[in-house]
Every structure is written in structure tokens, then in C-alpha cells.
């Protein structure tokens, strides 16, 4: 009996502590929640248990480029429902939504839907395919933009030439586009020109360029594509060196043409996973444009009856205004 008593004492102490903390938090929660913006909106049946048809919203973590793209296209930045399940990667998103009959999330187009029990949803009635992204009818997408420094603003003429050559390889050549597509970017490969034709305009690639370094900055989302492109470019451009220092779309313009262009983080090519804004004039650049696109797909469990959703419906689901699948009515 003594033994039991002793363990009971130990457990009681621990549980008591937990309860005290719990109660303290309970007060706090009741005290602050109603005043919190967005916490109320009684329609959020998605709060979890209760209601067999409650929508379960899945989101990527706040640092994710896919999330940034999805939130900016659908237009609910900062307004995500309080009752969302946050996952750390595209793969985790695919797996978890595929396990939840009431779940809805978003993944990149390259995801294997069937393997994860997912159904890709049509957006505004248009199926998510590469062809539809390229012809412009599928609009849940974002461009990967680039811009160079101003033409007279490179440290040396060699640097300027090699940057020009790389941009031509990345954006115009068939080979470059193939590499970008393999890394997940969506771009039309057939219309690209063979590099063997293009390289004639860029004699610098035949020299030894191991002393030159191309510095990239800006969007983190483009990292995979440009890393792949630079790695393959290195082999055909005299072993040119490169540094990929991606910190976010905002820095893409700033570090190439804006305030930080002469600072310690100055870059040769700036990238953004969106169009450059009006406040980011790229007219002075040697060259600017879009080298590929990235499509995001809203996904549900394969047994969910929903086939397509509009921008308004996605907005209302992800902000928590619509809490059940019944309210979607399909």
C-alpha cells in the first residue's frame, strides 16, 4: 500500500502543477480571445471535433514560398483561419491531406497526387496542368522573375558578359529550360533555342571563368531552379563560380537596383517569385523578365466530392468564413 501511496503522491504533485498552469491559461484565454481579431466568427465549425463535414484547413508554415504564392493569389494574406493545421513541407502537406477526408490544402504542381490519395482541384473551372499554366488559363500560379543590374553597373566587363550569357542560357536556351523544368519550374521547352546557336553571341563562355562569381539574391522559392541552372551552366561556361544568397522576393530588386545595390549584400541577378512591383522599376536593368512559372494546386482527399473551387470559395474556406463542406454545396 505504501508503494501505491508514494506513486500517488508523485503523480498528484505533477498533475496538480499541470492543472494550476492549465487553469491560469484558461482564464487568460477567455479573457483575451473575444477581443482578438478573427478569433471569433462563430461559423468556424472547422475548429476540429464536432460535425462530420467540418472543413479541416491545412497550411504551410509562414516561411513557405508555396504559402506565400497561394495566399497572395487567392488574396488572404494574414487572414488565415485560426483553426488551421500547419505542416512543414510539401510532402507532409500531401500526406496529411491525403489522410483526412475533410481536409483541404495546397501543394506545388509537381506533387504526385495519386500516390498520396489526393485530388487536385480545378481553379475557376480550369484543370491544373502544365499546358494550362503555359497558355495562361490556369491562374493559381506565380511568375519567377529576374532582373540584372543596370548595364553600366557591373564591376567588370567580363562580369557583365557572363551574367548576360547566363541569363540567355536560363531564359532562352532549350537546355536551360530543360534544367529549370526538371527542378520544378514550368516553362515551354520546345520554343527555346539550342545553346549551341545562342553561345556564339557570348564568346566569354569559352574562356576560363573560374575567377568570376555570379551572385544571386532575392526570392527563396526560385532557389531550386536557379541552383540547377547555375550548376549546369558552370560546366559549359569555363567553370564560372556562383553564390546563391536567397532571402526573399523583397530583396531581389533591392540588392540589384535598389538601396542595397552597393552594400555588402549586393547581387548580380535579383529574383522575385512575383512580378516586380511599380515601386521596383527594372527599366534600367541590362535585362529583366520571367524565366518560368510556378503553379500551386488546391488539393482535397480523393474521396471528397468537390471537383473545383473558385477564388471566392477558396478565400472563404481559408479565412474560416465557410466551415463545412455542406456550405460549399457540392
Amino acid at each position, binding site marked *: 500500500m505504501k508503494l501505491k501511496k508514494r506513486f500517488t503522491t508523485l503523480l498528484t504533485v505533477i498533475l496538480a502543477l499541470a492543472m494550476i498552469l492549465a487553469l491560469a491559461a484558461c482564464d487568460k484565454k477567455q479573457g483575451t480571445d473575444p477581443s482578438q481579431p478573427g*478569433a471569433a466568427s462563430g461559423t468556424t465549425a472547422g475548429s476540429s471535433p464536432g460535425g462530420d*463535414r467540418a472543413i479541416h484547413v491545412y497550411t504551410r*508554415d509562414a516561411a513557405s514560398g508555396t504559402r506565400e504564392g497561394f495566399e497572395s493569389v487567392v488574396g488572404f494574406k494574414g487572414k488565415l483561419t485560426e483553426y488551421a493545421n500547419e505542416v512543414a513541407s510539401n510532402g507532409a502537406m500531401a500526406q496529411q491531406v491525403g489522410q483526412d477526408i475533410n481536409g483541404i490544402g495546397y501543394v506545388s504542381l509537381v506533387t504526385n497526387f495519386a500516390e498520396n490519395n489526393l485530388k487536385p482541384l480545378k481553379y475557376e473551372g480550369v484543370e491544373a496542368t502544365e499546358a494550362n499554366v503555359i497558355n495562361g488559363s490556369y491562374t493559381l500560379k506565380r511568375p519567377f522573375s529576374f532582373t540584372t543590374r543596370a548595364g553600366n553597373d557591373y564591376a567588370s566587363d567580363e562580369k557583365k558578359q557572363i551574367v548576360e550569357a547566363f541569363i540567355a542560357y536560363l531564359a532562352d536556351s532549350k537546355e536551360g529550360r530543360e534544367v529549370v523544368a526538371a527542378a520544378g519550374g514550368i516553362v515551354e521547352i520546345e520554343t527555346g533555342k539550342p545553346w549551341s546557336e545562342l553561345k556564339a553571341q557570348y564568346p566569354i563562355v569559352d574562356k576560363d571563368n573560374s575567377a568570376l562569381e555570379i551572385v544571386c539574391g532575392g526570392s527563396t522559392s526560385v532557389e531550386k531552379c536557379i541552383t540547377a541552372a547555375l550548376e549546369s551552366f558552370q560546366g559549359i561556361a569555363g567553370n564560372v563560380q556562383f553564390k546563391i544568397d536567397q532571402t526573399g522576393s523583397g530583396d531581389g530588386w533591392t540588392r540589384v537596383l535598389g538601396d542595397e545595390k552597393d552594400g555588402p549584400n549586393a547581387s548580380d541577378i535579383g529574383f522575385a517569385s512575383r512580378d516586380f512591383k511599380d515601386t521596383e522599376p527594372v527599366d534600367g536593368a541590362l535585362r529583366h523578365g520571367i524565366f518560368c512559372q510556378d503553379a500551386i494546386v488546391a488539393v482535397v482527399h480523393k474521396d471528397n466530392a468537390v471537383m473545383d473551387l473558385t477564388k471566392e470559395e477558396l478565400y472563404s474556406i481559408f479565412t474560416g468564413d465557410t466551415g463545412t463542406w455542406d456550405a460549399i454545396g457540392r
Partner: protein
Amino acid sequence: MVFRNLFRIAGVLAAVMVILIIIFVTSRGIRPFIGGEGGRLDLKEFLTGSRWRSDQGIYGLGFVIINTLLVSIAGGVLALPSAVLSAILITRIAKGKVSVFLTTIVETLAAIPSVVYGVFAAGKITVLVRDLGHLFGISTYGGNSSLAVILLLAIMTYPTMTTLAVSGMRSVPRQLDSASLALGATPTQTSFKVIVPAARSSIVTGFTLGLGRAFGEATAVSMIAGNALTGPTWNPFDITRTLTSTMLTGLHETTGLDYEVRFSVGVILMVVIISMNLLVAAAKKRLEKKGGAAL
């Protein structure tokens, strides 16, 4: 003399490492709260808040602390009885090869990397919890929930607790055992009333170490916690968020305040673990005092 100095150096090195880690994490962790200029965090709001919205710049950790305590302690408490019973099986009931075999299994469990536990949990435990929820008519986030985390932590802390309990029970003097049996107690009574109390010190140490693992487990937990944005989470079938999952999720991609604040979370995590250890140590001391008189 040479050896004594070697040991001394080793001890100092270990202590220096701990102190360095604490200094480093703390110095990074207080940054989000100092330096003014708007956008910085309010310490009180950080410690007691009930919302974690990095997209809106709101960092309230209060509910995360409670969630962490709840799931870790629940997991530990769930594992403790199974660990003690397993230890009795290994040391008292199973003979020879069976005992060795069982010990090997427990040791193997302790050696499995946490990411492997995570994959298992994301594929199996969540499905189990989802189906269990279905049975009660509760719709879960595909099984991602407090309950799934608790079950996972119970499995992960079980080997630590069992190993410690086994070594504690093995070191109980043979005479105690024989005396109990000679007085007419059955083997079962002997196990529960003589061996377990005599080994309680090891059992409690195992519990502490197990809790430490539960509090600190990041990879596996963040795969199934769901990382709720508000809380605390009282419903075991609802998604939760722990200190470690908060630190880990999105760590590789984020920058600025959202990155620095993770060090602050780390400071809180260390404080929680240290106070938990002190608490258990105090409980153990009391237990020993009472037990000493009884034995």
C-alpha cells in the same frame, strides 16, 4: 594524479559546454525583446499569449507551454506503468534467453532515431487515432492530434524508463527477495511490494530522463502535432503545438524576427525542462525520506 586531473578536465569541459549553450541560446533568445523600434515583442504577451501567428507577427507562447507540459507528462505517465511492468517481467519472471531477448528489444527501441519514430507515427499512429475518433463520431485532422503525440511520446519514453527500471531492480539485494519469499509472500507480492519499492530511485530517474526526452523531442512530434495556431488544446483529438515543433517548423526557410524568436522558445524550453527536473528531484527526495523509514 594524472588520471584525477584528466577527470577534472572532462568535468570542466562538460560544465563549460552546458554553460556555453545556455549563454548562447539566452543571448540570442532575448534579442526579440530588446532594441525597441516597433515590431519587437512584448515579454508578457509572449509568455502568456494564446495565439502563435507568425504571418501576423503575433507570438504568444503561453498555450504552447501548456500543450507541451500536457502531452509530455501524459506520455510519460502512460509509459511509466508499462515500463515498470516490463522491468518486472524482464528481471523477475522471464528466465535466461527470454530475458536477454526482451532486454535486447527494449534497447533496440531506445536506439531507433526519432525521425524513424516520426515516419511511423505519421503513417500508423495518426491513422489509429483517426479511426478511434471515427468510432466516437469525432472528425480529426487525419489523426494529427494531442492524443497521437501522447501515444508517440509514450512509446519513445518507454525504453528509457524500462532500461533504468531493469537496472534498478537487478541491483536490489538478493536477501530482500529471499526474506520476502521466506516470510510467505508470493513471488508477485514480492515483486510489487519489495522489489519495486527498493528500485524506486532508479524508476524515478528513468521517469525524469523519459520526461526529458518527451519535452525535447522535435522531429517526430512536429510531424503529427498539427501545429495549431491557437490553444491550449484540451481535446485529445484536436491538433496541438509544442515548444519543439514551434522551433522546428519552417526553421530552414525563415529569417528575421521569426527566426530569432525560435531562440526565445528554446530558452523557455530549457527553463521548462530544468524546472520539471527539479520538481521530480524534490518529489524523489521526499519519497526517499518516507521510504527509508519504511524499509
